[in-house]
């Protein structure tokens, strides 16, 4: 049996793969359409701004790693402030990660209900997702890292197939003009879609759970940068393919692939790409739920993640059933009222952590 500490150990490679395999797949379904609704062909500018902010957070987290000798965020807060403060911050992050999981969950549910199934199925069809999520919550970060090891292939192959199948409908002049008068539109678009960004905050929770390697900044930032580039390129391809109607094409991956001649002539090969990406999407959805479980486990000082895992997954399952077919209502509520919450936990807190002075010597470094 693995010890709990061992269960939560990641390799730096796996962190890179988590970013590469899980980060893009949550941003290539609804986000391109939402961003084109706000700023048309400049959707990629909005995404670029968001990713630059994320990479900034990543640099902060890497700086914290060096400055505080790879101790966990909880230990850092506990040591510098108090156990209560650490618990409060972790509680906040627990809530934040649950909120962060909601949109990808409803996005996938909407896709399953309206596109994958011929007849909109019962809401219960989606509930088994939370069994998988619960199961993962009990397994630990190490297993999630291993899943990323495998999902990197699925994401890569899925995206390659999507780009390949979309090739014949792309007209890159649709994203022209590339240089325009600067306007507030992309910033507004980013603000309204901030719920999709700030994945780099995951790295804060990974602190203390991996061993440093040579050139780790380059590896981590490089992988996040590559994942960002893939998403931006996807958005460019998406807008190039749909132009003026991009804002009405909600499930970008499906929409991009159905025009392939191969599909017109035979069967729906595009489903191979969609299913491959869906595997990674499931893990990408599970990741924030898992982190929320861990945050509550620490916040309430529990020895096992069983109770928070049951409660969180049950709550999310009920929420999903209640809000079936209400993706856009939830989306609109979140982007109107919760953007500041996302900015606070995604960017403000990481920025504030920069100002925590270095301890002369921490009692027990790498403490979990």
């Amino acid at each position, binding site marked *: 049996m693995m010890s709990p500490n061992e269960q939560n150990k990641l390799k730096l490679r796996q962190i890179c793969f988590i970013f590469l395999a899980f980060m893009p797949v949550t941003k290539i379904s609804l986000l391109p359409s939402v961003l084109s609704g706000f700023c048309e062909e400049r959707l990629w500018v909005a995404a670029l701004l968001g990713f630059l902010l994320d990479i900034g957070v990543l640099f902060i987290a890497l700086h914290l790693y060096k400055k505080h000798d790879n101790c966990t965020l909880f230990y850092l807060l506990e040591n510098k402030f108090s156990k209560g403060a650490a618990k409060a911050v972790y509680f906040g992050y627990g809530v934040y990660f649950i909120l962060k999981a909601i949109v990808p969950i409803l996005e996938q549910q909407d896709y399953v209900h309206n*596109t994958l199934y011929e*007849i909109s*199925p019962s809401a219960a069809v989606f509930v088994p997702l939370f069994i998988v999520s619960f199961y993962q919550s009990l397994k630990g970060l190490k297993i999630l890292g291993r899943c990323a090891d495998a999902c990197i292939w699925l994401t890569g192959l899925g995206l390659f197939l999507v780009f390949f199948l979309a090739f014949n409908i792309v007209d890159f002049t649709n994203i022209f*003009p590339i240089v325009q008068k600067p306007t507030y539109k992309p910033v507004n678009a980013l603000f309204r879609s901030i719920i999709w960004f700030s994945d780099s905050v995951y790295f804060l929770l990974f602190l203390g759970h991996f061993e440093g390697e040579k050139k780790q900044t380059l590896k981590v930032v490089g992988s996040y940068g590559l994942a960002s580039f893939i998403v931006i390129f996807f958005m460019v391809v998406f807008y190039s393919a749909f132009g*003026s*109607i991009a804002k009405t094409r909600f499930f970008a991956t499906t*929409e991009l692939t159905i025009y392939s001649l191969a599909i*017109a002539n035979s069967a729906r090969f595009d489903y191979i790409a969609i299913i491959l990406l869906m595997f990674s999407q499931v893990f990408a959805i599970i990741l924030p739920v898992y982190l929320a479980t861990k945050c509550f486990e620490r916040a309430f000082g529990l020895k096992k993640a069983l109770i928070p895992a049951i409660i969180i997954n049950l709550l999310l399952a009920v929420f999903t059933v209640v809000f079936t077919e209400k993706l856009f209502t939830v989306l609109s509520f979140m982007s109107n009222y919760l953007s500041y919450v996302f900015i606070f936990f995604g960017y403000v807190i990481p920025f504030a952590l920069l100002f925590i002075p270095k301890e002369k010597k921490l009692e027990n470094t790498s403490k979990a």
Partner: protein
Amino acid sequence: MKTRVKHRIVIIVALILSILYFSNDFSLIDIEKTAIIVAMGIDKADEGVEITTQIGIPQATDQALDNQDTLISAKGKTVMDAMEILSKRSGWIPKLSFCNVIIFGKELASDDISVIVDHLLASEHFQNSALLAVCDGKARDFLSTPTPLDAISSFAIQKVILENGATSSSVLDTNIKNFCQKNYGRDKCGYMPYIRIISGDAKGQDSSSSATTDYEIEGDNRPIDGLIDVLPLAEGSSDGGGGGGGGETPTAIFDASKTAVFKGGKICDILTEKETIAFNLLSLPADRVIITVQADGKNSALEIINSRHKVWLDYGVKPTLNMKLILTVRIADGSDENGEGNSLGRRATVDKKFLKSLEKDLSDTLEGLAKRQLESETDLFGIRNLTYKFNNAKYEDYKKIPLSNYQVKTHIHVSSRDKTDENT
């Protein structure tokens, strides 16, 4: 977790799944009650629209499978309303994911199809890759027309649109996505193939005006219940094959070489065959397009083997729409005035007079087409879009210029394939 608890959970999950599995009533599709709609015709009705759905029905034998079809039509205030009525009265659940062709009746297209196309775009039931076409007459009649090309008429229509569009550039094919992209873009203009029926007797002749009226549909319409009609079938749904005319071989074939231009969702112009090819050359790289040209009383069929095109705007003294076509051609076949064939055939260099003739022909066609469109303020060439993309800084100013103020310039250059062929 204790092993005993784990086992209990596994047993409970297995039980629930087994109940769902064997009860077989969990948002399932009953395939036998499903109508696989392969094409849809939409016509104008007194109050709303009349939809005609062509449903694929397999007829298997021991050796082969010969697909047949049946047509059901229903009237409603909107497309979905009509679909609902069709579903209620027929007992079939319509499946639209295989609907690859949607044909609009001419009367409806002259009225306004914006709302319908908007619905098609937004609906998750339709594939946005479904081909769109407008027909010369009623869509319902076109779908019920037997043709020797395929047992199912819509498959024949698909072939005509896709094959000709892909190989000869003689058809300007479009689908829901492409049409909407243009219609809802800055151009506010779209196009789709204009389908006509050409009877076997009058093969090669344009019978656009008389096709639907002259063509006699076998049998009478038998109304089921007011709004629903079951039509006699193209290939005879009851007898499992043969022509619609009581066993006679069907002779009708479809032609899609003309193109209907839409502005604001209404037909505003119909492009001729020549204009369709010329416009196609300006939009897509061409391959295997054959154009017959005449010079000094001789005919020569030239095959375009390579093409480059460019459309750009010039906002100098006067706003100008520039169209450039650079074509490389070779002889497909030719005859002189004595009726003698060219012995060198495809390897011969094309005579300059034919090249010049083709240049002039294309130039005149494109210029005439562009001027006609611009005068009617139809942005078929995407002037507004081009201005936005390439003159964005002054887009707000330029978009106020009426299209009729634009000048048209064509730059056509046609050359023969590989000069070395001359000596070989």
